[in-house]
């Protein structure tokens, strides 16, 4: 019985950290420029496909391709910012909606493109250093790919925290606080934003690679995580890294407990219910800045 309680709690924790990692990039981008990236799940899907393709053709272990995919996604993020988002920001009518629907249109486009290139087949990576391996401690089983993903998640958060302590991090923070005033001291907002997008995309790329180690890959896979990611970010508070981490774990646990104790098909209702309750008390999320 205790073993089962631990098992459920650990399952929730491991998944929650993944949610947190998926949400971190979203939160970063939102906090930076007040844009909810509706193509976030699709970026993750692209990272998963990238991991799959590298695995299939080069036989690299998922862990080995982390830096490659992170760099690819970083470039993609910068590209998306320069090509689309910078334009959306310069619009001075109806800006909020333009941003939502530009990223939404991009999401549809990416999904179509992924199907065009990869087809609709479900793919999965099932060899690799950790693939399918588990460790047992006192009757509690630890799936090693997820455990690795959790460590990578924590490392990624630590990395983001470190970046925020650097001079660039300060500039990022300053741009977030007053995106127009930074120009007065010679900081190029577009440069900072582009790097911010790159960083956000690279983070979700890391999440995608780790996920590809134990999840399936398909053009629609982003949608399975996107809503949870938005909820994680809003629950934690837009722009707060710590918030994303706490909210991710909270959501993972609520989901696991609802599924284990109540009704599995209603586990997301549990998550969304908690979210609504928290928002009633704290309209800007757990750690949101007012």
């Amino acid at each position: 019985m205790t073993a089962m309680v631990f098992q459920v709690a650990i399952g929730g924790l491991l998944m929650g950290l993944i949610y947190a990692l998926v949400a971190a990039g979203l939160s970063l981008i939102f906090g930076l420029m007040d844009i909810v990236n509706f193509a976030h799940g699709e970026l993750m899907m692209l990272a998963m496909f990238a991991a799959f393709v590298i695995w299939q053709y080069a036989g690299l272990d998922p862990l080995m391709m982390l830096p490659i995919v992170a760099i690819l996604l970083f470039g993609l993020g910068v590209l998306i910012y320069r090509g689309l988002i910078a334009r959306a920001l310069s619009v001075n009518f109806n800006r909020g909606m333009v941003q939502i629907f530009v990223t939404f249109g991009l999401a549809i486009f990416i999904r179509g493109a992924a199907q065009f290139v990869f087809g609709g087949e479900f793919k999965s990576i099932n060899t690799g250093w950790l693939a399918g391996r588990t460790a047992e401690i006192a009757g509690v089983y630890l799936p090693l790919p997820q455990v690795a993903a959790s460590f990578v998640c924590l490392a990624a958060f630590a990395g983001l925290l470190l970046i925020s302590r650097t001079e660039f991090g300060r500039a990022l923070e300053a741009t977030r606080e007053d995106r127009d005033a930074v120009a007065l001291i010679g900081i190029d907002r577009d440069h900072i934003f582009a790097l911010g997008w790159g960083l956000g995309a690279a983070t979700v790329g890391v999440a995608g690679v780790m996920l590809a180690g134990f999840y399936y890959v398909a053009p629609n896979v982003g949608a399975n995580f996107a809503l949870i990611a938005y909820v994680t970010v809003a629950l934690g508070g837009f722009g707060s890294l710590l918030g994303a981490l706490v909210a991710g774990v909270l959501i993972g646990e609520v989901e696991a407990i609802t599924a284990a104790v109540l009704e599995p098909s209603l586990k997301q209702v549990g998550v969304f219910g908690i979210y609504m309750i928290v928002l009633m008390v704290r309209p800007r999320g757990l750690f949101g800045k007012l």
Partner: protein
Amino acid sequence: MDNLITRRRRGELWIGAVILVVLILLPLPIADAYTRNLIIISILFAGLAQAWNILGGYCGQISLGHSLYFGIGAYVSTLLFVRLGVPPLVGMFAGGLIGGLIALLVGWPCFRLSGHYYAIATVVVAEIGYLLFLNWDFVGGAMGVYIPFKGDSWVALQFRTQKLPYHYLVLAFATATWIAAWVIEGSRWGFSWRAVKDDVIAARSLGVRVFPSKMAAAAISGFFTGMGGAIYAQYVGYIDPDSTMNGQLAILIALPAVLGGVGTLWGPFLGAAVLTPLSELSRSYLGGSGRGVDLMLYGLVIVVVALARPAGLVSLFGIRRRPKGVADGSPA
């Protein structure tokens, strides 16, 4: 100034009347069911987008959860018909009323949230509704509800292969939403809502009661959306949570308004007239390849229109509905 506004409003009424006449006559020379279906779906989405526009456009509350009201409307009228024999012509209004009521219930907690928090909360509430319906056996759960065909009838809103009756039904629906938007534009409510949209704090200082304003907009918007759902159910003959409450649907309802021109009288209609045929035609003639080309095209059009015409497609016609001198945000 007043004169100018009333003249322009009267002009819009005339344009509306002309377009209505055109739309009444439009299906007559078109014989084939597919094109008529295309027109019906476009008009239905025009009405839905206009319903969304009342809350999202005039009042500025970006709701991404309108699928909930749509689904509720569809379910209420269908269940009333299938279980209790209430004719859909009546059930349609019941669906609308319950849709409006639910919109009020959703608005009560959500309107204290702002910006993206509000948008995501609406998505979440709609998703909760969807999941509950999916698991609620009383309303058919995942199995959905099948509406048996009982013969051509205006009261039951069922027609074997005829499309014309549905055409006039959705046209009446879309016209009603347009008239509602037209009336709102000229009323004190419309003024309050636009004030709320532009600047909540300023609106408050002008004596606008912000919360009741949003609630009123939500109720009207929810009412029409629910009604649209009821019409959809009768038209398609089968409903399930996936097709009437799914989150994508909420976006499909909002999209024509956004790309056509939010907070404008003609934007939602123009948006639906372009987007719905685009989506349907590209699926029909490109989707068969199964390679996602239709999705790519659709996504691309959304991106391009949103960037090239941030004020919506209506701006192509030089229609400016915003009062002069009120810019959106600082030009910096």
